[in-house]
């Protein structure tokens, strides 16, 4: 009690004093000359600041309390304990001094506090009940390490349920409102022509396909022109709109496409998606239920042209598992780039695409906003095929990190909750704390077995992904990368996207170059 009292006194008076001092010195302005006379002049001028006197009194109080503490405890306890002032100081700087604390600076402060807490740790063995506390801690870790394993099994079960029961009944097949397929393009993906052509081969009565590029010289333009020649009976339009409306270029194109579209049902898919001939009929069928506000689809890889793409496929598998589990638990609250289908009315209710112009994860956000309006987001029975690019591992890590940072801004709770899906990290921690080698091995084996089993049920049996079928054993490697990316996504706030650097502020992309850097 005595310790806590004097500690909080030292920290609070000290921090308030430092904040006051900073305020006073900022009033005086930047010192440029460092001759003794100039420094003396600055000191004299600072004496005229009221804040300096307040600050000095507070700091003197704090200092004397600090000296007292030193007489009670060893310096290697006192100094680390008073370092709580770092957290207090960071908050004070942000809220009182209006300083701009970037994620990196926060991370630095957190590291320092952790470091200090660790430096503290050798005081703990003196406490009684330490052995019991450690035993409890171990049990807690073991219990927590079971959660991701249970999650894997649960998502495998939801996958079995979904793929068994998802085939639509015959009557929904007759619901065929006219559809506008919107495709914002930039550059060409592998197999672009085949991907686009699969949308022209739909067995569906009335639909149009709208492509948008921002540049007449975009390599996608000749491919679209070839498409109009090869499928003359399909209404295909190409819109060239060089105007850059916001940080997210794709949403800029969607705004224009939505204006141009003539039909009530809008189906947006990424350019690397390939679909089966009954795709539109199945998407539209789900909208027969008026409570359905949006439809999205799981996806599988057509092939994996590089190792980065294999890891990407494992990432999609992992994400599909989470999406299926989320669907069973609370209903889907997001849509994916593989398919984002909605009606004109629902889109109007969320204000169209314009509010998403600076949003990073636009596809995710459309579904989230429609779900917020009380509508259901449904999942298509069949996954669509995705032509993964021939990416390097570096590319893969970069875009996965970008996605995680985006998620942290849109759903910080969900992002933090990913902690309980980090099976490999929990299993490793449990293995470290386990009492014997056998127990350690059991934890690791349980993780590997359950993870691969669940991956097989979701990826091979459910999605029918040919890459997962061949490379499933790489799933634990993905989990390992994924864990470190997740950790990194707390510290990083800067994303590189299509050659431009942005920081994220509340899910909005702010281009670094144009960012006002003042207070």
């Amino acid at each position: 009690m005595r310790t806590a009292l004097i500690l909080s006194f030292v920290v609070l008076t000290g921090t308030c004093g430092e904040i006051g001092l900073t305020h006073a010195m900022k009033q005086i302005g930047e010192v440029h000359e460092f001759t003794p006379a100039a420094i003396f002049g600055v000191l004299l001028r600072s004496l005229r600041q009221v804040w300096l006197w307040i600050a000095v009194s507070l700091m003197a109080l704090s200092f004397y309390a600090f000296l007292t503490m030193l007489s009670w405890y060893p310096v290697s306890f006192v100094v680390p304990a008073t370092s709580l002032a770092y957290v207090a100081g960071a908050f004070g700087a942000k809220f009182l001094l209006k300083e701009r604390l970037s994620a990196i600076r926060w991370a630095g402060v957190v590291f320092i506090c952790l470091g200090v807490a660790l430096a503290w740790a050798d005081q703990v063995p003196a406490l009684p009940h330490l052995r019991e506390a450690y035993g409890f801690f171990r049990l807690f870790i073991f219990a927590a390490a079971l959660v991701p394993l249970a999650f894997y099994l649960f998502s495998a079960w939801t996958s079995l349920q979904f793929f068994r029961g998802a085939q639509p009944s015959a009557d929904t097949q007759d619901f065929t409102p006219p559809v506008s397929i919107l495709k914002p393009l930039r550059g060409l993906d592998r197999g672009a022509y085949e991907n686009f052509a699969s949308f022209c081969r739909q067995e569906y009565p009335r639909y149009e396909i709208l492509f948008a590029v921002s540049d007449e010289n975009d390599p996608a333009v000749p491919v679209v022109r070839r498409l109009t020649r090869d499928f003359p009976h399909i209404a295909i339009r190409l819109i060239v709109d060089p105007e850059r409306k916001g940080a997210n270029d794709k949403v800029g194109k969607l705004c224009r496409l939505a204006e141009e579209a003539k039909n009530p049902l809008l189906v947006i898919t990424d350019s690397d998606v390939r679909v089966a001939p009954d795709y539109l009929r199945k998407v539209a069928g789900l909208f027969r239920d008026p409570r359905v506000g949006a439809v999205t689809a799981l996806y599988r890889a057509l092939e994996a042209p590089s190792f980065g793409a294999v890891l990407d496929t494992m990432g999609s598998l992992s994400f599909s598992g989470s999406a299926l589990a989320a669907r069973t638990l609370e209903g889907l609250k997001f849509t994916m780039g593989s398919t984002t289908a909605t009606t004109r009315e629902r889109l109007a209710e969320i204000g169209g695409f314009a509010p998403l112009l600076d949003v990073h994860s636009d596809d995710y956000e459309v579904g989230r906003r429609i779900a917020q309006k009380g509508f259901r987001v449904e999942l298509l029975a069949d996954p669509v095929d995705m032509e993964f690019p021939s990416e390097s591992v570096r590319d893969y890590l970069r875009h996965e990190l970008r996605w995680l940072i985006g998620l942290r801004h849109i759903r910080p709770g969900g992002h933090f909750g990913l902690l309980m899906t980090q099976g490999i990290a929990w299993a490793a921690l449990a293995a470290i704390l386990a009492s014997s080698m056998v127990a350690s091995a059991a934890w690791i084996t349980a993780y590997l077995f359950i993870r691969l089993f669940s991956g097989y049920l979701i990826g091979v049996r459910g999605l029918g992904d040919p890459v997962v079928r061949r490379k499933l054993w790489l799933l634990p490697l993905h989990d390992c990368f994924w864990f470190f990316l997740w950790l990194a996504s707390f510290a990083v706030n800067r994303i590189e996207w299509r050659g431009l650097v942005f920081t994220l502020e509340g899910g909005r992309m702010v281009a670094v170059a144009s960012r006002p850097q003042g207070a």
Partner: protein
Amino acid sequence: MEPIIPSTRALKVKTYICLALMMTLGSVGNTILDKGMKSLGSIDFSTRAAIWQGILHTFTSGTIWLGIGCMLLFMVCHMLVLSWADYSFVMPFSALTYALVPLLGYIWLGEYVPPARRAGIVLIVVGVFLVSRTPPRTTPATRDNSAS
């Protein structure tokens, strides 16, 4: 919005010189003060007279004054650097004294530094490194030096 004063090379150089002085003076001062206070023994808070006695003892020790001298110089550097740099930038740097204090405590006072504390020191250094990756100043100038 007023544009930020760019973190020029000159600004960084003078920031780091002041910070280096602060760290040296701060850790030396702390260790001297600790040595001084230890030689006085624990302060008795039972009666008012005993408290005054404690304060008097504290301020008549030469070692304490040497420590206070270091801390005063530390204070001057601190004030100077705060006239241009962020508090949230300067503050983490003083954590480096936490790396220096156990080290001096070990060399000078013979205090044992256990492995956990060594690991803590590494974390502190990483934290300070992270902070040093951010610009020293993020607030606009409020007033020019010559104006007040």
